[in-house]
Structure formats: C-alpha cells, structure tokens
C-alpha cells in the first residue's frame, strides 16, 4: 500500500466536454423549459460538476478504494464494532431486482415477498432478544437508541408519569451515543459510576433510582467486555421504582443463543444488524438498528408494523399509541435482507457457535497479551476485552502510538481511549471469523510493539511509516478548515 501516490481530487481531473454516461434521447414532443416553468424558478448557472469519461471515473474510485482498509483486507479488531467477515451471499441476495427495484408505496399485493421477509426477520429478532415485537425502522444503532427512548417516553406518558419521570441512568462506561440519544429525547442523563470490578454498583444504583427515573440504559456484556453478573438485581431495582430497562445491542455478539436480554429483564433492545448480523458497515453506514420490546410496550412501536391476516402480509398503521415515525418508509430494507440471509444461513446452532467462538477468541487473545500489557479487569471476558497502555505510557508511548504502529504491521488497530474509565484504553474485539493463526500473529506483533515501546519509543511515536499517508495534522484541519473544494477555489 505504501507506494501509492496521492490520488488527485476528481475536480482536478475534469475536462470540459467529456462524458461518462448518456441518457436516452427524449422521445416526447419537446417544449421549451421556460414554457413549462417560469424563469424565476430556473437555475441561472449549472452546478459545476466534474466532466470525465467512464474509465477515468472508475480508475479514480478504484485507486481510492486501494487506500482503504476493510475486513476483506485484513484483521480488524475494532472493539465494540464487531468487524466480522461479511458473507458474499448476503451481498448477492441484496442485489436481486425483486428487492432493489420495488417501490415503498406499491400496493401490498405486489410486495408480499418483501413483507414476508420483514415479518419473519421481526420474529427471528424477537426470538433472539427474548421479546415480543420489533420495529425494523431505525437506520442505525444510535437511531435505535433514540427510538427506544421515545418508546419509553410514550409508555410513561400513557401512564400519566411523563412529567415526573425525566431521568435516564447511564453507566460511565457507556457508548457516547447513549447520553446523546437521551438528551435528543428531552430526558436528563444521570451517570452512574462503575465499581472496582467494572460493573454497575448496586448501592449507587439504589440511591440514584427513584420515582423520577424513566429508565436505565445498559449494554451487557458492558463496554469492558464483562458480563454484568448482577443483571437481575439491576433489573429489579429499576423495575421496582417504575423505570424501564433499555439494552444497547452493540455487544450482542457475545450472547446469541446463550442468554437473551428479555430474559435478563430488559424491556427494550436495539440490534446493530451491521455488527452482530454481519451486514457490512459500508465505511460508515448504512447500518440498521431494529428495536425489540416487551408485550406491554408493543403498542408504542413506530408505525407501520407488518402484520398478517389470512396469509396476507400488510402494513398495519392502526396503533394509536405509536410514537409515530423515526424515518421515512420502513427502514434500511436492503440491510434487512442481508441480516435475514445471515440468520437463515446459520440457524440456531450456528448463531450460538458465533458467540461461543467470539468469546473463545477474545479470551485466547487476552491471555496472549496480558504479559506485556496491563489488564485492568483480570477475569474471563466475553466477546471483547480492554487493555490499558499505562505500562507503555511510562516510556512516553501512548495508546495512539501503539495503534499507529499496528498500521505498519498491516492491522486495523483496536478502539482506543474508550471506554473512558480505563486509562489509555485499547478495546479489542477479534470476532468469531478469525482463525487461531491470525490471533497468534496479531499477539506476536502486539508483543513486539510492547518491546519497541521500551527499546525504541520514538519509532512508535513517529509511526506509521508504511501507510499511504503518515500521521495527519488534525489541528490544521480545524484551523485551516477545508471541507469543500469549490469554496477553496472561490
């Protein structure tokens, strides 16, 4: 990858008169544009889009793709993101014209296949979550959180308690989206400290929870990769004060077929289909964040739900207590198709094997690394674990430097500086799709880096050396803001 030259911007390659695509000839009687639309609405100066041939466009974006690292390129142990292999059949299926070329407003008789898929996927997700009904509408995990919080709000409002229940309890180890979603719904965040074992502290929870509590947001295993063993007690405390439990599904890859959020006492669960169910992440989306809920919350789900009557699937808008809509149409449908395909390809046993292997891989890798890196919570982890770079810090090497050095060895680094409660955190999630050799090799490189940190810390501080580009000046990006090529050209 290291010999790739700077790829010019597409705007620097344009040449007036070149074309990459031709539209069909107009076959209806041609009218003058301003006979159809008054002048005041018309554009005076066309958008200055690039002009290139098809070959040039293809080469440009192909060159850009070569500067990018994906799961198909190599190991991607980015904690909390579940960067597992994305089966190719999923991609093929999502390209069937019977899925890509159907309009969301077609009449129900013409879209029975799509509705059946949604209905069945909803059932599968409910079974996996141990809950009653689900919406497939949210477009991503954070969007699911937002939806879940609104369902909580709808439920409390229905009981006349919305004015008093204003607080959502969130552990200090939570994903940043959690508190952001809470405040988007007009709720207040109450942070609860983790105890010395990295878990929710029950005594603090008892103190914080009360009649003002709308609910608790939690991921289990938590962001340290540890299973909240007191989950039933946590649920009891929150439920006893009339609050609800929300499950952040980012870490669901540890639980498939082993334990279900609904059985742990959660009332609302979001899934990240682009994590657990291997619809790829697309370089930053599209994701999909379905929400599953208990029976008593089902009426508050966004409309429409897909219901079935006389073997016909239909969109049911008749849920008067519904929170409304969080997105136009029905969700990121093609992403749903991929998740559906994935679940069908594995079945119950395959899904359980996914989680078992993900947990095995994480524990195996953790033990290979604990000699050279500080392990703040020394116990069996679930699908991921968090190391601290504090030993390396004493040599002036930061988690960031370790991450950058990993790039030289051809790996995507772990998530760094998260969770916030661990100093110099490095959060590692190997997933189930990596073989033992990959884990061994990665551990070897990590241990090599630990040695470098002692012997040659400067090497790490200046890494990477072998990437298409070296460390970038982020401060300059802010100070000399350049986010639009045309603005710069003005």
């Amino acid at each position, binding site marked *: 990858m290291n010999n790739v030259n700077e790829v010019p911007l597409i*705007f620097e390659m344009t040449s007036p008169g070149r074309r990459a695509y031709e539209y069909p000839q107009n076959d209806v009687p041609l009218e003058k544009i301003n006979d159809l639309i008054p002048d005041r609405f018309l554009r005076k100066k066309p958008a200055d889009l690039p002009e*290139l041939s098809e070959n040039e466009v293809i080469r440009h974006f192909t060159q850009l793709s070569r*500067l990018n690292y994906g799961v198909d390129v190599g190991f991607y142990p980015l904690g909390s993101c579940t960067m597992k292999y994305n089966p190719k059949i999923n991609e093929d299926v999502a390209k069937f014209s019977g899925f890509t070329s159907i309009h969301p407003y077609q009449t129900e008789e013409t879209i029975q296949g799509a509705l059946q898929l949604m209905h069945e996927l909803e059932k599968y997700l409910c079974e996996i979550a141990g809950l009653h009904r689900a919406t497939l509408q949210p477009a991503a995990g954070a969007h699911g959180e937002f939806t879940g919080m609104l369902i909580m709000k709808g439920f409390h409002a229905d009981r006349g308690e919305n004015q008093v229940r204003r607080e959502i309890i969130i552990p200090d180890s939570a994903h940043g989206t959690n508190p952001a979603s809470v405040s988007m719904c007009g709720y207040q965040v109450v942070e609860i400290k983790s105890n010395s074992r990295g878990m929710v502290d029950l005594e603090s929870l008892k103190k914080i929870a009360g009649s003002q509590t709308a609910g608790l947001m939690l991921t289990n295993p938590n962001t340290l990769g540890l299973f909240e063993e007191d989950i039933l007690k946590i649920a009891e405390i929150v439920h006893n004060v009339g609050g609800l439990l929300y499950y952040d599904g980012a870490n669901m890859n540890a639980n498939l077929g082993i334990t279900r959020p609904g059985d742990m006492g959660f009332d609302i669960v979001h899934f990240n289909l682009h994590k657990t169910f291997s619809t790829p992440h697309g370089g*930053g989306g599209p994701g999909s964040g379905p929400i599953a809920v208990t029976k008593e919350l089902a009426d508050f789900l966004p409309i429409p739900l897909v219901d079935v009557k006389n073997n016909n699937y239909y969109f049911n808008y008749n849920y008067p207590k519904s929170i409304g809509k969080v997105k136009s149409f029905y*969700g990121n449908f093609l992403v749903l198709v991929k998740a559906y395909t994935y679940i069908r390809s594995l079945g119950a046993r395959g899904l359980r094997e996914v989680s078992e292997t993900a947990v095995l891989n994480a524990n195996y890798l953790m033990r290979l690394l604990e000699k050279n890196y500080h392990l703040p919570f020394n116990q069996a982890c679930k699908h991921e674990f968090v190391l601290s770079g504090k030993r390396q810090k004493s040599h002036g090497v930061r988690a960031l430097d370790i991450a950058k050095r990993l790039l030289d060895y051809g790996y995507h680094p772990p998530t760094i500086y998260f969770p916030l409660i661990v100093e110099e955190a490095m959060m590692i999630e190997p997933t189930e799709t990596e073989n033992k050799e990959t884990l061994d090799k990665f551990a070897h490189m990590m241990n090599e880096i630990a040695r470098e940190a002692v012997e040659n810390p400067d090497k790490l501080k200046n890494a990477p050396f072998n990437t298409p580009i070296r460390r*970038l000046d982020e401060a300059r990006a802010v100070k000399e803001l350049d986010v*639009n090529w045309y603005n710069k050209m003005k």
Partner: protein
Amino acid sequence: MRYIPTTEQDRKDMLKSIGLQSMEGLFDDVPDRVRLQGELNLPSAQTEYELFKSLKSLAEKNNNLEQYPSFLGAGAYGHLIPSAVQHILSRSEFYTAYTPYQPEISQGVLQAIYEYQSLICSLTGMDVANASLYDGATALAEAAVLAGEATKRKKIFLPMTIHPEYRMVTQLYLENRGMEVIQIPHDKGQTDLNYLKDNINEEIAGVLIQQPNFFGILEEVKEVASLTQKFGALLVVSVNPISLGILEAPGHYGADIAVGEGQGLGNPVAFGGPFLGFFATRDRFIRQIPGRIVGATKDIEGKRGFVLTLQTREQHIRRQRASSNICSNQALNALAATVFLCLVGKKGLQEVANLCLQKAHYAYRKITSIKGYSPLFTQPFFHEFPIQTPDSPEVINKVLLEKGIIGGLDLKRHYPELGPSMLLCVTEARTKKEIDTLVQALENYHE
C-alpha cells in the same frame, strides 16, 4: 459452519492455553437464571445454494419495477443508474470498512466523502455539507433542530405541502426536544403565503419548505425566503437533487440550510432504503452541523490527506451535549451519489432533469385531456403532479396492474380532504410508449 474457521482441534488447543476444560467455562459469569435453556427457535441453517434459491423465490413474489413500469414517486424515485456505480460500491475495501477512525488507512473513503461534500455544496449552492444523514426525513428534522439551536427560538413552521412522512419524523424530533411545530395550510397545492405573512414573527426559529413540494409543485421560495429573513428565522429547504439540474439552487435564493433525499443520485428505490439524507449549510453554522465532516489537511511529510474534523460537535466526545446522536450514517449511499454525480457530470444532470420535466408534462397533458381526469392543482411542477380521478385510485391501480403498470400514489391516506386523487411521477426511465400505455389504460378504464 462456513464463516467460522475454528476447528475442533483449535478449540481444544485454545481452551487449554487459557486453562479451561470446556466451552461452558467461558460463560461461568452468566447466571443460570438468565441462561437460555435449549436452542433458539429459528429455522434450521441453509447452505449457500439453498439460501440463494429461497431468497430468489421470496424476491420473485414481489412485482418489481424492471418488469412493471411505475409512475410512483413521492420521495423514492426510479432513475437510471449507470452500471459503473454498482461496480465501485462492490469494492470491498469500501463496503467492509468501518467509519474512518484511522485516517492513514482510510484515505479512500475520506477523500470520497470530501468529494461528496463538495459536490453537494455545488449542487445546492451552499458552503459546507456533512457526510450524510439517514434519509431526507431525518435530514429535515435535524435541520429544524439546528434552526432552533442557532436562533435560540422554539417554534418551527411546517407546511402541509411537505412530504407527510417527513412531517411525522420532524414533528417527533422537535416536540421531544421541547420545540413547537406550527403547521401551515396549503392553498391550491402551494404553501399558503398569506398564512405565513400573517403569522410569522420574531418567535419563529425556522421555516421549512420542500422544493418541489410533495405534490411536485414549485413553491414561491423567493417570497418565503424574504419573509423568513425579515424576522430573523432560518430558511430550511428540502430539495430534490435531480431537479437542481434545472431548478435554482437553494443557496442562491437565501436558504440557510439545504437538505434532501439523495436516493435519486445513483441509489435504487429498494423498498424505501437504504437512502441518504444530504445536509448543507452556511459557513457560520459549521460548528452546529450534525454528523461527520471530512476536512483536508497535510501529513507530517506535507502530503495532502483527509481526516474527520470538528469532532467536538459529536456524540463520542461531547456525549449528551452533542449536536446530534448520529454515529453511523449512510456512507456507502453517499459514495453512490458521489460516483453518480461524477459519471453524469455537468451536462448529464441538466439532461436528466429536463427529461423528467418533458416526460412528466407530456403525461400530464395527455392524462388531463381524458374525460374524468382533471388536474388537482394548476401551478408549475417538476416531474410529479396530482390528478383527480373518476374513481378511487385503489380501484384504478388494480386495473392498471392487470395491464402491467404500477400507477400513482393514492392521496387518500395523507390528504383525505382532496377527494379521489392520485400523485403521478414520470422520470427519464419512462418511455413515451409506456406513458401512452398508461394513458390508454386510464382512458379505457373510464369507458
């Protein structure tokens, strides 16, 4: 299991190396009471070939638009997509990557987003754009939120001519933040300017408008802009990006924020998703923009490169005080839009917009000359128009389907007061022959 490489022997070796006897030992911390007894109740696993066949048959239960010429629009548009778009999206270096947190190995997607942002700015006439939001509806909602934050006011004008689903989403986003939505009625398919004049005041944070609006009709955006500015409110315009091949860019008539549904730019209708919401605004609001922004910078050797920038606005840093909770957006769909715009180029965008315009007006003239079908409104429109139908559109669409045509959208659910009427859309993908077949079928139906 074909996606898991771990063999029985590997498992034994790995367990041994961590000092465990069995896989069960990995889950000692999961209390018995929450352990799943038995197996999940799911259909049994299928091989790749079985899956291919069963999914194919599920897909074939749908009447797809490749076989049935469709006149549906209303926020999801069947435009032609150059082959090259899909080929770029199929590069797995793009689609199997995460959000570009490590810029040194993510220059591909980062540069593509920078190009996307620039193209959206050129299209809309704005200064800055983000890396995309979920769809047109959430982009409008986020824009309204920004209007509230920027003006420190709480009321938003929301015309009834905006897409009904966008209105539902916007209402949900705003009311839960303690903002107030004021609906503006329509007058013959356009936002009622008199209502706006009589009711706008210095408490209004923003005026939202859709151009062309849900009915396909053009709004008097310049008048709306001057009224909005007079009272210090922000103007948020939701635009159809294809229409910007011929229609004036929102940045040129005073919009403060331009948003819209980007699906028409190289993304299939796909039963409503995944789509992408684009979001562009003026320089002065850059620190309040929701979502990712990519900026150009240099590396330590002076080489140009791209990074996620102004991240202190975002949830992973600012947590509950972030400008939005958005994390994953619609990066791959934004890549499709980028490749699409580069392929069609300056001329192609004007051509496709004009083709839509010409064909829609041809269909309009033909249909409204049939006895029993009359225009619902008469204002200028782009590529969509509502017509009054002699019978309920539900019945008419059934007859059309028998002729192999997917008709327009029945307006009953969202605008029952309009009587039997149908919203029809005609894009460049429809031929004259298909339009004539539709006209013939409508004519025969009436007889």
